[in-house]
């Protein structure tokens, strides 16, 4: 990841001590934003591009799973990780089955594992972003070709354009 800017990570937990501790661990390698509630997290997602969202499940007001469900509408490309205590297994299973989370991490976490998982998530985001850029470039190229080409190749070109649009 040399040269490229630090991946942006949004940390969500209702306990400030947890956020402070995570901030201390991750500050060197990631561009961090913290939020103490699901509501604040959604605001942050709307304001700035977020590569990785790391949220606790058990929070007053909005739970982690609820936050993830809503975050997909605001920032679908963000890769999500959930913190879970012992008793939250049900919520995790549900979130996994709904395809909402990339990984989950049990509390208390192992600091090295957490770093590794965050880097995996950042790489995953990067892959998705790269794919999206690739498709967009291809679409632009095909669109130009369709505009420049003769009639008979246009139906094939238009079909390809439609497929690229769907993929994007």
């Amino acid at each position, binding site marked *: 990841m040399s040269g490229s800017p630090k991946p942006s990570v949004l940390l969500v937990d209702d*306990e400030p*001590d947890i956020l402070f*501790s995570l901030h201390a*661990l991750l500050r060197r390698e990631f561009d961090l934003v913290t939020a103490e509630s699901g509501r604040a997290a959604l605001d942050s997602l709307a304001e700035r591009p977020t590569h990785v969202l790391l949220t606790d499940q058990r929070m007053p007001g909005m739970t982690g799973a609820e936050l993830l469900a809503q975050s997909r509408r605001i920032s679908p490309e963000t890769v999500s990780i959930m913190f879970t*205590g012992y*008793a939250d297994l049900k919520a995790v299973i549900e979130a996994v089955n709904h395809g909402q989370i990339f990984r989950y991490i049990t509390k*208390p976490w192992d*600091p090295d594992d957490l770093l590794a998982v965050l880097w995996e998530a950042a790489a995953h985001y990067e892959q998705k972003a790269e794919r999206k850029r690739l498709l967009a470039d291809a679409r632009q190229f095909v669109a130009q070709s369709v505009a420049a080409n003769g009639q008979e190749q246009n139906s094939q070109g238009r079909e390809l354009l439609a497929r690229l649009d769907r993929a994007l």
Partner: protein
Amino acid sequence: MKVLIAEDDPVSRRLLQSYLAKWGYDVAAGADGAEAWRLFEQDEFPIVISDWIMPEMDGLELVRRIRSVERPFYVYTMLLTARSQKEYVVAGMEAGADDFITKPFDRDELRVRLREGERIIRLERSLAEQNRTLRETQAALVQSEKLAGLGHLAAGMAHEINNPIAYVTNNIAVLRRDMLAVMQLICKYQASRKLLARLAPEPAAELDRMEQEIDLPFVQANLARLLDKSVEGLQRVRDIVRDLRDFAKLDEAEFKDLDLNSAVHSTLEMVRHEMTCKEIHISTDLEPLPPLEGHPGKINQVLLNLLSNAVQACSVGGHVAVRTRAEGGQAVLEIEDDGSGIAPEQLPRIFEPFFTTRSVGQGKGLGLAISYGIVRDHGGSIEVDSQLGRGSTFRVRLPLQLPRSD
């Protein structure tokens, strides 16, 4: 059905014996009250027919003695007597006799009266059975509430303790990384100390003084160790919280595959403190077991009950052995102690609810009854071998697969 006859007159005694044998009763007879009492103590007789007037011990005294001992079943007593006046009937009833037959007895009357006695015995039995079921149900209710309370407590505690453990563990990792970097930085500063002493002797002397004051070499040598030991301590707290949660897995009301050996390990952790206090040696011989179908929280409760009992029974420096093995579709668990053992007369009662040998307030006498119920619910069995003063072995058998209920 077994019937005991006490009759000193040989003719009458033989007559009774032959009638009763003909009617299908299993008969034993004593030539007087004392002999009949010896026979009674050695065996189980639901019906006793006794003559009133006998040498040594008369019928009235025999009935009194029978009533004074506790038997797990009802004993129906009949007095044979020529005395039919009211005051004799009252005296006989007060001693505890159930029926009177006047001498010389009529064969048919004796037969129907014996049948009546059998009917009373059946009624007494079904009453005792109902009573036992009632007590078991009540005990099960108490146990499920107790367990529910403990489960809530454990789950709540695990969650509350988890968050601080999480960030303290993380903070130590951060401190370790950052402070070791700071130590390297200080090393670099120290390397340029000679240069500083030449350029600015006063601040350099101040630095020397401060280094001595905080004993910098110690800090440099031991910082990593201090942090590592703290991480180890936290790991232990984590394990305790995890064991506590494993112990009272109440969310999982369903039966599921469980590993008996790991249940033994986590329960041993629960009694570790008690064992250490009494300097009790524990040996385990756990053979690999296939998973068995069961309720983890409840199986853990059985293990905890049996292990606590074993520890309680042991004197200081005693031994407890825990063994598991698979045997013909069953998982067999043995918990053996070399403690006080159980008196033979108490042995049949230990699984009864509210039966306890401890003084009031020290135990409710529910542990073994609950364990018995739980094991029974799993389609298994508990048995015990015990010798007073030598120790006890409790053996739990659990089917690896639950019998399918219809």
